[in-house]
Each structure stands twice: as C-alpha cells, then as structure tokens.
C-alpha cells in the first residue's frame, strides 16, 4: 500500500486564499492520522482537495506514484473515500438501503446474497443492526453519523478521509467509532485521516497529528511532539498543558490564558 503526499498545493475560494503552496509529509498507510486545527482552518477544504471534489489551483496530490489528478473522478473517489461532515436526508430510504448504496458504489442493478450479507455484517459490526429498517429521516444526529461512518467503512478504498466523525456522538460511541476506524485502517493497510476537534481523542487514537492553521501546515509529528509544540497553543489562542492519564494516555488541558 502506498502513502499519501501533497506538494505545493494552492486553493482559493474566489479571492479568498485558503492554501498557498502548502505541502505535507507522506501520510503512511496502516496508521491513523488526525487532522487538527481551529474552526475554518481549512480541514474540510483540504479533504475536498485530496478527494478531488474541489479543483487544485496548483500542486499535486500523490498516492504512492500515482498522481490523483490523472484519475477520473469516479476512479479517484473509489480509491479515496471521503465522509462529509453533514448529511441530512428527508427521503423514504432505510439505513439498510443507504449502506447498500455505498456498498454497491453506483454499480450493478442487481443485489446478490453476498451483498445482503456484507451490508448486514457491516451494520452489525457498527452496532447499528437494530436500525437497519429505520428511515434515515427519523434518525437522530448521532445515529446518522454512525450510519455515515458505516457507509464509509463498507467501501474498500486506499485512503479514508473522515470529517469530524464523532461530533454528534456520546462518549461510548466516540470511542467505538474511532476504534472501528483505526482497526479498519490498520487491517486494510490504508491511509486514514480523521479531522477532530477533541484533542484528547486525537491524542488517544492517532499515531500522527497534522496541525492546520491559517491555511498552513504548522506541525506534523507524533501526538506527543505536536501537542507540546508552541504552534498549537498559538494557533488555538489558548494555553495548552499535557499530562499523563491514569492509563498512561496523553491528556490535553486547555486554559483560556
């Protein structure tokens, strides 16, 4: 499996420059990387650029030796699985239907027994088997987020990009979902990047952190290094202290000044 790298990428929304020739070190497969940074730092935009949903104004994104811009949109999105932050659907579709839709990847009219089993298993593994027959319009915010993660993980891709997969979840489901994402990434040897606001979750689950702020990559290293750097306190505008938790995990404390 191959690493994801970007060099010299620029993007602007009209006259508002978001990225000016930024680059990140290759993101190695088989590990979970967390993308952190304040609101409007450009996390979603970076994901969209990698997925090809927004056009790069300069620079290249490579997966191994492949220039992702050389692939068709369809082929690119097969390799790069991107989970958007929001989904609201007021449609008469069940959870099973929408996960099947993600599983089929827009191909083939017929649904085989193997497809049915795959979707059933995925729902069961995600802990939402009981929601299979529920309509997506009736789900709570947290439940629809669980469905979104399931839709992403049922696809076999080389790169997984999750835009805040835990923002609407309770404590147990936050740990569950990140655990699922991490084990899937490790098991499949895929590149996994998760945008997170909760630095404690990032420190706990991610092998690497990328700190994004003011349209630049400010740090890319292990959680211990990034969370202790001056850049993080400066970017967020808070004082940050770290300590050791009762189970030897890294704990992040933020103070207003």
């Amino acid at each position, binding site marked *: 499996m191959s690493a994801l790298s970007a060099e010299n990428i620029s993007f602007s929304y009209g006259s508002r420059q978001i990225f000016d020739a930024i680059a990140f070190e290759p993101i190695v497969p088989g590990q979970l990387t967390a993308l952190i940074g304040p609101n409007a730092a450009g996390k979603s935009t970076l994901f969209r650029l990698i*997925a090809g*949903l927004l056009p790069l104004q300069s620079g290249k994104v490579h997966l191994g030796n492949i220039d992702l811009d050389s692939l068709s*949109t*369809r082929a690119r*999105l*097969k390799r790069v*699985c*991107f*989970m*958007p932050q*929001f*989904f*609201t*659907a007021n*449609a*008469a*579709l*069940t959870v099973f*239907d*929408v996960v099947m*839709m*993600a599983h*089929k*990847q*827009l*191909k083939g*009219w017929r649904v085989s027994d193997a497809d049915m089993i795959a979707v059933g298993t995925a729902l069961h593994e995600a802990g939402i088997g009981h929601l299979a027959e529920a309509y*997506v319009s009736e789900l709570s915010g947290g439940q629809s987020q669980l469905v979104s993660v399931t839709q992403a993980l049922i696809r076999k891709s080389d790169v997984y990009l999750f835009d805040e997969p835990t923002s609407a979840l309770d404590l147990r489901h936050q740990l569950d979902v990140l655990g699922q994402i991490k084990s899937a990434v490790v098991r499949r040897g895929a590149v996994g990047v998760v945008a997170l606001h909760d630095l404690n979750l990032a420190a706990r689950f991610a092998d690497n952190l990328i700190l994004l702020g003011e349209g630049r990559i400010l740090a890319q290293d292990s959680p211990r290094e990034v969370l202790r750097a001056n850049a993080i306190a400066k970017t967020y505008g808070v004082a940050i202290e770290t300590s050791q938790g009762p189970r030897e995990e890294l704990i992040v404390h933020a103070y207003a000044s």
Partner: protein
Amino acid sequence: MGSLARATWSKVGICFLILVLTLPWFMNRSWALTALRMGEDKAAALGVNVSILRIGVLAGVSLLSAVAVSFVGAIAFVGLVGPHIARMIVGEDQRGFLPLSALCGALILSGTSIASKAITPGIVYPIGMITSLIGIPFFILLILGQRKRHWQ
C-alpha cells in the same frame, strides 16, 4: 384540459419509443439518483457527477413530458399522485421507485380513463377533470400532512 380523445395508436407508438429510449438511461443511473436523495455533498463523495446527472434528468424528463403533453394536453395530478403511491409501497430506492412510479401513473390514467367513459353512458368526459377530482383532495391531504410534521 387534457383529453385522451385525440390519442391514436401511432401517437402511442411514439410515446412508447421515447420511453424505451429514455428508461434504460434512468435505470442505469438509479444508484446515483438514490445517492442524490442523501444530499449533493454525499452523492458527490460517492462519485456522482451531480451537475451532469441533473442536466441529464432534466433533459429526459422534459422530453418524456413534452411528447405526452403535445399529444393529449396537460392531464393534471398524475405525476403527483403516482410517485407518492409508489413511494409508500417501495420507498425511494430508485431501482424500484422509478419503474413503480411509471406503473402507478399508467394505472391511474387507465382507471380514470375508464371512469371518464363510464360515468354517463354515451359521453366521454375530459380525463383531466377526473384526475383533478382525485388529485386535488390528495394534494390538500399532502399539504396538511406536511404542516402536521412541522408542528410536531
């Protein structure tokens, strides 16, 4: 108001031909159309080219309705009631929803056509009158249902 009185077999043939030409395209895009019901963002992330799909659907739908309307005139409410019945039966997975909507529309048209000829022997009422008689109460129920949902 629309009426089936002007229909001939050759016009039916042309309608059928257009349907045979457009339906496979729609069926081929059924997963993409289902994906679009989850929102543009989600559909795009699955690899749907949303703008091309939109234009294609618009063109196909325009062609189908233009051909039908140019032969028999505007027959109201069939396009509203048919898909709603289909949605209640199979949900919005377009693989089932699309063909069943067409079937429901055809059934409604056939049923009302029979009614338009059977009510007064010897007189054929314009079919648009009958479909409106069914469609308007349905439409009002739909609006009331919608408002109820917002109140809750």
